[in-house]
């Protein structure tokens, strides 16, 4: 697989959120507005890229018995550094993201890529894989964040786009979009749309009901 493919493959074809269903928790929590979704996307992509390249570089010397804890230590250190940087240079956004930046440590996506890919591949492909997956995650966050902010508040990045009724316009904000369930709805619709277009992503049905089982019993 070429490096560029490593980078683009996780965008849609192998998207961590819609195909692997990883990192859902933070995808729900930080997508109430586009700006928090963007900051979280950048933070996660940086952590994922950096952790992949570091873990891949020292992969030959990580003893198997303690590999998970070594990975987590490296990821946690990176996350704390990112959190400190956000608190210094993006104070307002960091307050909105609150614990979710810290929770990147437990984001299945980061540990998943470290364990599944970076532990077995050289640094450069690992970096491409990390950043690719980060971008795949970002893409979904941005789509969900855009829809939720636009429909929930009529704004984008805080700028009014749809004139709301309150300010004399025609748009009635959908309060539901600001609540967590709406992120599930949007994600569900996205998964449906993507799997309808790329049908190979659909999972095989695990079991089927026998036809006419009810009548046979009678």
């Amino acid at each position, binding site marked *: 697989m070429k490096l560029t493919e490593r980078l683009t493959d996780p965008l849609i074809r192998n998207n961590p959120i819609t195909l692997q269903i990883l990192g859902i928790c933070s995808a729900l929590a930080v997508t109430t507005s586009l700006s928090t979704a963007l900051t979280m996307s950048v933070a996660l992509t940086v952590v994922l890229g950096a952790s992949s390249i570091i873990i891949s570089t020292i992969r030959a*010397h990580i003893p*198997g018995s*303690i590999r998970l804890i*070594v990975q987590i230590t490296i990821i946690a*250190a990176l996350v*704390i*550094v990112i959190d*400190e*940087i956000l608190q210094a240079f993006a104070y307002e956004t960091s307050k909105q993201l*609150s614990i979710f930046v810290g929770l990147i440590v437990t984001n299945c996506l980061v540990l998943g890529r470290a364990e599944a890919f970076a532990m077995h591949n050289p640094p450069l492909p690992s970096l491409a894989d990390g950043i690719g997956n980060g971008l795949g995650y970002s893409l979904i966050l941005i789509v969900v964040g855009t829809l939720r902010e636009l429909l929930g508040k009529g704004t984008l990045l805080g700028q009014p786009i749809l004139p709301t009724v309150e300010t004399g316009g025609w748009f009635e904000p959908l309060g539901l979009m600001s609540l967590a369930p709406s992120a599930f709805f949007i994600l569900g619709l996205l998964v449906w749309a993507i799997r309808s277009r790329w049908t190979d992503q659909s999972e095989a049905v695990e079991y089927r009901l026998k036809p006419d089982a009810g009548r046979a019993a009678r």
Partner: protein
Amino acid sequence: MANPIRAFLNRPNDDTAKTFGVAIGVALVSALVVSTASVLLKPIQDANIAAEQAARMEAMLDQLPGMRDLMMETGVDALETRMVDLATGAFLPGTDAAGFDMLAAAQDPETSVALTTEQDLASIKRRPTMAPVYLLQKDGDLMLLVLPVHGTGYASTIRAMLALEADLQTVAALTVLEQGETPGLGARIMEPDWQAQWPGTLALAEDGTPVVEVVKGGATEAWQVDGLTGATRTSNAIQFLLQFWLGPDGYGPMLDRLRAEGL
């Protein structure tokens, strides 16, 4: 004789010494990176927090009716800061308030006094000997007095600013500057809706006794304010820290003096 680092790296990965070595090495490097980032960025973060608190103070002034007009009339654009000796209640002219940190001063035995359990309503163990207060005067009459207060809440130290009106009895506003209470419960003390109940509350009786109460289930008296549902300990903490700071071990002596002598 091979290089010792190479020799270490050449050990098999399931070797106990290598396992320990890698674990300690990763931990040390991570710790170093984290502490470096933390120390280097601390000044910028502190500046952010200070700017935010200054903005809160400005916002508090903005919500006090007529306060901006009064400031315009008296020709000042900020409140006057004075240091107070808490034991005597006297102003300390010539003491610089800039950079004075009440919480840091309370930690240092030289700039603080220990409180007994009976005195320590706010659960702060030590109280600084001095504190900055902010005031607005017009022709020598006190118009507004802002007192920084703090105390221990349910999960954190709560810092707030209490603004008193010219009668030194009525609350003009309460603004919480800093807290780390339970999000969604105690942390709602930050919400404007809750803070909006404070203006007009009677904090002190005529003789200077603190009477303010944060009550459950509906404030009925002039000195009562509704507590927060599901955050009894945080609500109580606010009541106790106000009673402490308005009482004889807090700003009481200064308030008595101002009541008797004026500015």
